[in-house]
């Protein structure tokens, strides 16, 4: 749906940001990447996270705790919402369409390298893991708060920042946001890194070679810290039943 909005924006401008280099088809690669990550998260993790806060409220988490399996694993993969995977197909279509356009454009056509097809899925995976970590951390807070109805809202507002190229934040007080959402809650690297690898493979040669490493480090730190938060939260769990 968002694509309609961007098609209209690109009717009025040929680029987002002065030197950002996000022209129409580059940006559509970015958008496809967003869709990939969102569809994966919504298929595998979103239903479970919602279920989790309900488990806490009703006290049914007891049953999950009793089972001889890692609790986080159990509650993370209980359900799958296959319908959300339809967006994944849409993302594939959009990505292919944009890449065809990018590789055949007259000026400065994109050349695809085999390494891109390895790195792109890998960094999408990293992005999904970061999103998953944020979700686990948010869901865990419902142990302390009893009920976290605004979980979904909170999730939506935080991930909302990840849907745009990080360059747009790099001005004025946006730098503070940029810093916070890159290094504290690393949502900006989630989409930006894989999208950049696919759409602007030439640029990392310069001063930006370190971004994939930042993404990797961010993934590791997020997964570990969400695990820590989850454990900590479980420690505070008091069953709701008698």
């Amino acid at each position, binding site marked *: 749906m968002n694509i309609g*909005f961007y098609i209209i*924006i690109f009717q009025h401008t*040929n*680029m987002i940001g*002065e030197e950002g280099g996000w022209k129409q088809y580059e940006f559509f690669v970015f958008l496809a990447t967003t869709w990939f990550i969102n569809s994966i998260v919504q298929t595998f993790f979103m239903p479970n996270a919602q279920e989790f806060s309900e488990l806490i409220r009703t006290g049914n988490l007891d049953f999950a705790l009793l089972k001889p399996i890692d609790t986080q694993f159990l509650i993370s993969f209980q359900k799958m919402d296959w319908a959300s995977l339809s967006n994944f197909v849409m993302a594939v279509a959009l990505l292919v369409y944009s890449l065809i356009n990018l590789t055949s454009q007259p000026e400065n056509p994109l050349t695809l390298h085999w390494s891109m097809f390895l790195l792109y899925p890998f960094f999408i995976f990293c992005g999904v893991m970061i999103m998953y970590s944020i979700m686990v951390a948010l869901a865990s807070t419902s142990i302390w708060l009893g009920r976290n109805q*605004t979980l979904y*809202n909170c999730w939506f507002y935080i991930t909302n920042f990840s849907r745009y190229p990080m360059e*747009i934040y790099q001005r004025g007080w946006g730098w503070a946001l940029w810093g916070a959402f890159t290094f504290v809650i690393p949502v900006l690297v989630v989409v930006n890194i894989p999208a950049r690898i696919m759409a602007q493979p030439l640029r990392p040669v310069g001063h930006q070679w370190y971004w994939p490493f930042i993404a990797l480090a961010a993934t590791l730190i997020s997964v570990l810290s969400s695990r820590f938060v989850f454990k900590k939260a479980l420690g505070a769990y008091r069953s709701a039943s008698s």
Partner: protein
Amino acid sequence: MTAHVVKWWTILRISLEERFVYRGDFALGTLMRFLPIITQIFLWTAVFAAVEQASTQSGAQASEGAAEQSAAGSATTVAGYSLSAMIAYYLLTMMSRAFSSMPGLASGIALQVRNGEIKKFLIQPVDMIGFLLLTRMAHKLAYYTIAILPFAFVFYLCRGYFELGWPDMQRLVVYVCSLLLAFVLGFFLEASIGLISFWFLEVSSLLFVYNLLTFFLSGHMFPLDLLPDIAQQVVTYLPLHYLAYFPAAVFLEKIPANEMWIGLGVQALWVLAFIGLSRVMLNRGLHRYSGFGG
């Protein structure tokens, strides 16, 4: 008559009290709702920067290339909106949507039809649409009482984006009227969709499409002036743009003074049309409806 008034007043009061239970959560939630505006500000700043750069480049080569450059000077505009106007527009649509959005109304009606809860309106001397309207009004009243603080705060912070300042009195009156009408229109529009459940039982996918269309065609997502001319023509004939675009456009003086009264009139006609439609649907629907069990 007095009994009626007392009854409706009681419904309103109970709903109000119910709404005020979670005040803190409410205020925080409202403030959070402005977060997407921040990304919009940055997105549009980036877009305008690109447009400006493109026009200065082409302007250097050929002076007629600077089509987007307004005659007044260097202010860049997109579809007649300067950057400030664009951001002001987004803030104003937040305002419009605070009036016209009806979360959970249609799905609530559909649920009641499906699980048979609607029976209570058949037995009790309470009109269903009236009851829902009052609870919704209570919800909105409670919402504004608390939301006025975060709203005022954000609008105060963003006052610089309103380059034109306050519109004149006449415009302000039209603005407020169109906001109030947007509330009523939003309510009856969504109630009508919820009432389709008498025929379909499950309206969630229909609702999904409706929400998508509303987001797009009400002007919530972007000013409708950005649309190509033909699409813009079509959209003005739809009721949806009264839910977000019209009030904001009135405030920003995008609609000439004589046209805004006509617009307001058309909006009122849409309201009447949907009031009628929902009444007919409720009547017909209840005749179709069959309730089982206790």
